[in-house]
C-alpha cells in the first residue's frame, strides 16, 4: 500500500470524524452534552469501538441539500463490547444538521439493527435529533417506519436500550417506546409528540418543554423512562450495570457470578411492623434476600407503589416484583399494573426467573381509576403472569386480599412455589370489611352493635386472616419464617432450572393492551 493512499484515508477520516465542525461541537459541549462518539466510547469497553459506514453520504437531492456536506449523515454506528460482551450501537450526532433523520441516516441505523438481530446481541440507540429532515420528504418518514418495524421484530429476541440524550420529538419518540429500556438525563432529555407551541394554541395549556417532556416528567409521570440520571456519566454507569443483569439474547441466560450473602444490616425478621396498618420499605426485604443486597431498581420514580428490578440469588439473575406499602398502601392501580406487567414480560422473554413479594390491600377503588381503565390495565398483570413460563416464585409477606392476591402471581396463575410468612393474611378482603358483610344482620340486631362488630372482626381474623387456610388447600406450599426466605427461594430456583412448560399452539395471544 502506498504511503499516499494511507495519507489520503487519514485525511478523509479526519474530516469526517470532526462531525459538524468545531463551532457545532462547542455548542454541544456548552449545553452540557458529550459528542456522539464520546458517548459511545464512554459506554463501551476501552478500545472496543469499531465504527462502520463513516463514509456514507447524505441522500437528499432537493432544496440544495445535495450541495451540503453532512459527515456520516448525522449518525455514528458500530460495534463493540460492554463487560466483554458484544453489542451493536448507534448514536445520532446533533452537530451534523441537528442530528436530523434522512434516508442515509436511517439506512445506517437499520443496518446496525439488522446486524444486532442476526448476531443475537443487544442494541443500544442514543437519540439526539431535531427530528425528520424535512427536505428529504417521505424518505425521512420511511426511515422512521423502517426503524419501528425492526424494533418490533427484534423485541423479545435481543435486549434493546434507548438512551435519550437530547431532543427526541414527534415520530422519533416511538422507537424508544418500542424498546425495552429507556434512559433519560435531567435537563438533557426531551421527548414529546407535539411541542408546547401547538399545545398552547389548541388547548390553551401553558407549559415549558422541561415540564412537558423532560427527563423527570418521563421518569415520574408518564413512565416512558426506566432509568433517570443527573448526568450523562451516571446514565452510562446505569447502562453498564443493567447489562450485567440481562442476557445477550432470548436463547441465553444472564451470566452467573459467584454467590454472595445479603449484607448483615438487612435482617428479614424485623423489617415488617407488627401492626398491619404500618407501612415499611419493601426494598429492605428485597435487599435482605439477594446477593450482596445489590438491587437494581427500574422505574424507581414511576408508580412507586410497586417495585420492580433485577438482583441475583446465589449468583443468578432474578426479576423481582414487590408491592410497596410505603406508597399508596401498595395498591395495584392503572400505572403499577402496567409497570409490573411489562417487566414480567421482559423477564419471561429473556429467561429470567420471577420472584414476587406480596403485601397489598387490593386494587385501588375510585371513579378516576375506573374511568382510567383499571379493569383493562389490571388485566395486563394477570395476563403477563399467566403467560410467563419462567420459574415463578411468590412470597406472601403480609396482606394478600381479593383480586390483588390472585394478580400477584398466585398459585392459580401458575406460580411454581408460593411461600407465606406466618403473619400473612390471605383472604377475600380485610377483616373489617368482611365482618361487616358476613355478619351484617347479627351486628345490626345486636344490643351493642359496635361490640358485636369487634367480636365478629376478631372471629373472622382468627378464622381467615392467616396463611393456614390457603395452605390447607395447597395454595401455599410452605409457611416459612422470614429468616428462611432466601434459603427457600434459592432452593426453589435451583430445582426449577430445567423447568419446561408447553403452551397450546397459537400465533400469539391477544394481550389486553
Amino acid at each position, binding site marked *: 500500500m502506498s504511503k499516499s493512499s494511507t495519507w489520503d484515508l487519514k485525511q478523509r477520516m479526519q474530516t469526517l470524524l470532526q462531525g459538524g465542525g468545531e463551532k457545532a461541537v462547542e455548542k454541544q459541549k456548552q449545553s452540557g452534552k458529550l459528542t456522539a462518539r464520546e458517548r459511545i466510547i464512554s459506554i463501551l469497553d476501552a478500545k472496543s469501538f469499531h465504527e462502520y459506514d463513516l463514509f456514507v453520504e447524505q441522500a437528499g437531492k432537493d432544496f440544495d441539500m445535495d450541495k451540503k456536506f453532512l459527515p456520516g449523515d448525522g449518525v455514528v454506528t458500530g460495534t463493540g463490547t460492554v463487560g466483554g460482551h458484544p453489542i451493536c450501537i448507534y448514536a445520532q450526532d446533533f452537530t451534523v444538521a441537528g442530528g436530523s433523520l434522512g434516508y442515509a441516516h436511517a439506512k445506517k441505523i437499520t443496518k446496525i439493527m439488522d446486524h444486532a438481530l442476526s448476531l443475537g446481541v443487544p442494541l443500544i440507540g442514543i437519540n439526539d435529533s431535531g427530528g425528520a429532515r424535512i427536505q428529504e420528504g417521505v424518505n425521512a418518514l420511511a426511515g422512521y417506519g423502517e426503524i419501528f418495524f425492526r424494533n418490533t421484530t427484534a423485541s423479545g429476541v435481543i435486549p434493546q436500550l434507548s438512551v435519550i440524550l437530547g431532543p427526541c420529538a414527534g415520530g422519533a419518540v416511538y422507537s424508544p417506546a418500542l424498546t425495552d429500556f429507556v434512559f433519560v438525563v435531567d435537563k438533557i432529555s426531551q421527548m414529546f409528540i407535539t411541542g408546547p407551541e401547538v399545545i398552547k394554541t389548541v388547548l390553551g395549556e401553558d407549559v415549558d418543554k422541561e415540564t412537558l417532556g423532560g427527563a423527570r416528567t418521563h421518569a415520574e409521570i408518564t413512565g416512558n423512562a426506566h432509568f433517570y440520571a443527573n448526568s450523562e456519566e451516571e446514565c452510562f454507569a446505569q447502562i453498564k450495570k443493567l447489562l450485567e443483569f440481562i442476557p445477550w439474547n432470548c436463547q441465553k441466560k444472564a451470566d452467573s457470578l459467584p454467590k454472595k450473602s445479603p449484607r448483615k444490616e438487612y435482617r428479614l425478621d424485623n423489617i415488617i411492623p407488627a401492626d398491619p396498618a404500618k407501612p415499611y420499605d419493601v426494598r429492605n426485604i428485597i435487599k435482605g434476600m439477594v446477593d450482596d443486597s445489590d438491587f437494581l431498581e427500574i422505574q424507581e420514580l414511576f408508580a412507586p407503589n410497586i417495585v420492580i428490578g433485577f438482583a441475583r440469588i446465589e449468583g443468578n439473575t432474578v426479576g423481582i416484583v414487590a408491592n410497596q406499602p410505603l406508597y399508596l*398502601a401498595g395498591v395495584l392501580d392503572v400505572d403499577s399494573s402496567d409497570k409490573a406487567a411489562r417487566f414480567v414480560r421482559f423477564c419471561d422473554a429473556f429467561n429470567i426467573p420471577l420472584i414476587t413479594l406480596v403485601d397489598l390491600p387490593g386494587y385501588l377503588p375510585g371513579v378516576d381509576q375506573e374511568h382510567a381503565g383499571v379493569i383493562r390495565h389490571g388485566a395486563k398483570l394477570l395476563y403477563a403472569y399467566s403467560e410467563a413460563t419462567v420459574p415463578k416464585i411468590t412470597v406472601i409477606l403480609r396482606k394478600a386480599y381479593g383480586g390483588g392476591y390472585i394478580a400477584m402471581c398466585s398459585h392459580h396463575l401458575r406460580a411454581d412455589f408460593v411461600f407465606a410468612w406466618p403473619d400473612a393474611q390471605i383472604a377475600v378482603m380485610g377483616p373489617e370489611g368482611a365482618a361487616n358483610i358476613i355478619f351484617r344482620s347479627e351486628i345490626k340486631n345486636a344490643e351493642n352493635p359496635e361490640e358485636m362488630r369487634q367480636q365478629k372482626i376478631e372471629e373472622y381474623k382468627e378464622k381467615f386472616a392467616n396463611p393456614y387456610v390457603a395452605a390447607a388447600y395447597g395454595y401455599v406450599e410452605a409457611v416459612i419464617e422470614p429468616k428462611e426466605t432466601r434459603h427457600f427461594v434459592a432452593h426453589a430456583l435451583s430445582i426449577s432450572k430445567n423447568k419446561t412448560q408447553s403452551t397450546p399452539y397459537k400465533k400469539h395471544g391477544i394481550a389486553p393492551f
Partner: protein
Amino acid sequence: MSNNRNHILQDPDTHLYIINIDGDVYHTNTTEKFERRKFWNNPNTGEIRAQIAGTIRQFFVAPEAIVKRGDKVLILEAMKMHNEILSPVDGIVKEICASIGQNVAKGDLLIKIESK
C-alpha cells in the same frame, strides 16, 4: 417560533371545532372524554394534596414550622394503611387545610408550604 395563524374556534352551527395549526385547518368533533377533561395547570410544588382518598390521622407539623424535603408531615389513613406523607420541598408551613379525623378526597389540599 410563534405562529399567530395557530388558533381554535367552534362553529356555532355545526358545533365542529375548527383548528388551525401552522396554516393547516382541521374540522373535527370532540369526544365526551375530551370535553370533560381538566385543564392542565402547573402544579404548585408547595401544595400537599391527597394522592388517595382517606382519613387524616395525624399532623407532624403546625403553621410556621420549618420542614425539609422528605420530612414526615402527616398520616393519611387509606386502604387500611397509615400512609406517611412527606414534604416535597424545603420550606415553612403556611397553612394546615384539613383537620384530624377529616375524610378527604383525592386531590384535596392538605397543607400549604412556602418553599425556600
